[in-house]
């Protein structure tokens, strides 16, 4: 493992130790800050509930992420190729995006129900915009002179898109997709908190109602583990695919 990875691990362990020390030393009540060891113990005890909930949330986040990324890239390609679409469409998309996605959740729950579909739609919405905007910026960033060079070789629009603009936009598309990993989990959990049949958000909501804050923390623990793993995986794929950066 690299040095920075080790530093990250040591830093995290130090924070957790300080947390444990503070919670025990000041004898903080569980609703303020439970001790790390208590959270871990609770997570282990309630694993039968947490594991399926974690799976559900992860599946919702992943499906929404896939749909959102495809739509985001698709729309960006469309606007990069059919430039006249930009004038009328871009302001509309920006207006939709100017409101935090969570604001749309009551409507989405109403339209798509309390089940998995509404979570996927919400995640796709959140991820789609981030990926769309970064992909569009990527397509616009292409060097004018490279386009001219391709044209001088007799390349048409399709060849320029496929051989130049798409690969040139990849680094920014990948950045957008990496940032979206964390967002996808956040949005899935928030939407679950507003109405769901299961998932980590639902567990958090139920635990709050039952004033079981250790359970809230153990669900958060599972969520952040999934989030970190997802972020790390996408980051690793990005480094492999975009090797020239």
């Amino acid at each position: 493992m690299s040095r920075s990875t080790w530093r990250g691990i040591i830093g995290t362990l130090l924070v957790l130790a300080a947390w444990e020390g503070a919670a025990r030393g000041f004898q903080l009540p569980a609703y303020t800050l439970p001790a790390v060891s208590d959270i871990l113990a609770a997570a282990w005890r309630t694993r039968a509930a947490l594991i399926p909930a974690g799976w559900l949330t992860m599946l919702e986040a992943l499906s929404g992420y896939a749909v959102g990324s495809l739509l985001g890239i698709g729309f960006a390609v469309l606007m990069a190729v059919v430039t006249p679409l930009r004038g009328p469409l871009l302001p509309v998309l920006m207006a939709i995006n100017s409101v935090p996605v969570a604001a749309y959740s009551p409507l989405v729950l109403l339209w798509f129900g309390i089940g998995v579909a509404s979570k996927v739609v919400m995640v796709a919405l959140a991820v789609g915009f981030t990926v769309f905007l970064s992909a569009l910026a990527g397509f616009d960033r292409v060097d004018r002179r490279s386009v001219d060079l391709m044209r001088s070789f007799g390349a048409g629009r399709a060849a320029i898109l496929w051989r130049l603009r798409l690969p040139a936009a990849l680094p920014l598309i990948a950045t957008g997709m990496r940032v979206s990993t964390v967002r996808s989990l956040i949005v899935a959990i928030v939407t679950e908190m507003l109405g769901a049949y299961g998932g980590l958000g639902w567990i958090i909501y139920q635990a709050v109602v039952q004033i079981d804050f250790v359970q809230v923390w153990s669900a958060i623990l599972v969520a952040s583990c999934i989030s970190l793993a997802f972020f790390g995986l996408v980051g690793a794929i990005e480094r492999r695919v975009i090797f020239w950066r």
Partner: protein
Amino acid sequence: MAELADTPLLEMSRVSKTFGPVQALNGLEFSVNAGEFVTVVGPSGCGKSTLFNIVAGLEEPDDGGILRFKGQSCHAAELLGRVSFMPQRDLLLPWRNVVDNAILANEIEGANRKEARAKALAMLPEFGLAGFEKQYPHQLSGGMRQRVALMRTFMFERELMLLDEPFGALDALTRTMMQRWLLDVWQRHRRTILFITHDVDEALFLGDRVLVMSARPGRVKMNCPVPLPRPRHADLVTAPEFIALKRQVLDAIEEEAMKSFTLSTGAH
């Protein structure tokens, strides 16, 4: 028949180009014969790049200008894909290795990728790139990147090659090495080359003919044949005939540089 053979490959007359209030070219006239190596020098901002963009087909000249390719009058846009163009910067694609960068133009033409790769592989030693086929641009030195770009230009086999200051970004030593090497390659492949530079030594050392451009708006101020024998060697640049030609060309450029300097500073 004799007439046909005498037809220049490229001919321009009364070519002007205006960008808004700026006139980049005004009444440009010149021709390039098949197999000739013509170099273009001029003060900075004299419209050399505009001239190149027209010949590459990227920009149309103003109405009234005449452009002929192989004796046929044509629009600049019709030259797209018919001239192999090498811009100032190498513009290699960072996600393609040396061979795949070299065959980019062939791929766009629709050539078989496997055959193009095999051809490129066979050409690597000539371009000093043997063993580097799998390297990516960020792993190469400036001189090597430039050679890959030149190879891409050579692979795109067209009668006319346009080179826009291909060695401008290289250090002096690498540049002289590349010039000698380019002459070597040219002697073997015998393409027609139109080569832009701002280096008078380079223009004379390489060219059969040097065109000196005027200050903006650009036109051809002087057409200077270079009757120096080939193959040319490094010590040519200190020969008296070379120095005499250099003096002529420098005087012409100096006059133009003063003009554009006076224009831009408003001095009299």
